[in-house]
């Protein structure tokens, strides 16, 4: 469902796939070939949420913030993730069930491990791997790992088009 709130209607690129079981409200912008999967809620009520192109937000995620939130291009966000941060850079992978807290900023080419808790205000530099509760920096993201993120993004861009064609 796509809903207007306080006069703001989500702006969704015509090539993006929004599942019939997702819920998007308010000041939200979603770019070309991005996809939002069943059960995910994106709530742009306190502040705008901008999502780039080729980005996937998988099932049962919640995307919401008290301050403007920008998610870049080619970002792959797993299942049941809570995105409550300020920024996610391009070509970053967020593992299943991670939590990104207020004002946190995740750089480009990062990997946030499954189940990680990125605490309020944490800055994750470009090309960094973080994991744990609370999340700690564990090293640099290898070129192979970045390629895997790119492959996941490609697979999802293709599959989301099939879902869209089938009217799901």
């Amino acid at each position: 469902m796509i809903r207007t709130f306080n006069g703001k209607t989500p702006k969704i690129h015509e090539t993006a796939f929004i599942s019939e079981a997702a819920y998007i409200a308010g000041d939200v912008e979603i770019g070309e070939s991005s996809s939002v999967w069943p059960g995910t809620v994106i709530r742009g009520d306190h502040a705008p949420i901008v999502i780039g192109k080729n980005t996937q937000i998988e099932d049962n995620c919640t995307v919401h913030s008290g301050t403007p939130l920008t998610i870049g291009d080619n970002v792959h966000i797993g299942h049941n993730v809570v995105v409550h941060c300020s920024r996610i850079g391009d070509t970053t992978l967020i593992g299943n069930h991670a939590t990104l807290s207020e004002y946190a900023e995740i750089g480009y080419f990062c990997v946030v491990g499954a189940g990680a808790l990125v605490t309020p205000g944490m800055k994750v530099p470009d090309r960094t791997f973080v994991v744990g509760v609370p999340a700690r920096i564990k090293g640099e993201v290898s070129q192979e790992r970045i390629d895997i993120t790119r492959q996941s993004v490609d697979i999802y861009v293709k599959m989301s088009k099939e879902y869209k064609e089938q009217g799901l």
Partner: protein
Amino acid sequence: MIKSFRGKTPKIHETAFISEEAYIVGDVEIGEGAGIWPGTVIRGDSAKITIGRNTQIEDNCTVHSGVPMTIGENVLIGHNVVVHCARIGDNVLVGNNATLLDNAEIGSYCIVGANALVNMDMKVPDRAFAYGVPARIKGEVPQERTDIITLALLFNMVMAKEYKEHGL
């Protein structure tokens, strides 16, 4: 909602309860007396998902996998769990908010503690109790504990029947 994808329609036993707020798509098989609760997404698009008899998957879970996944009989999966593994045996309890990652295998009569993160490829042997982030094997599941799981499962099954009768 129950939807077809790539020509595959979920096969759901007539006695199973599927909440009106659950979303099930693609190559998914669900056995006799099973219950799928509100907000849960089961996405059989990349690979087949088979769920055995009496198994209950509570609210807001995501069940998805890149390889075929089998969940056995009499399994109780708590709220907000991410099931992304290859196998769960019979008579298992998966605690609230747990995460089961790619290719992991959980044996029969196991308990996965609440909030546990079962890492990629981890094998949890039969009757093992695993918890923590990342999950570690902490001991054996005593018979009393297995009996409690059976009771909790029965309770859910009875309630699922009531929900089904009410058309929920």
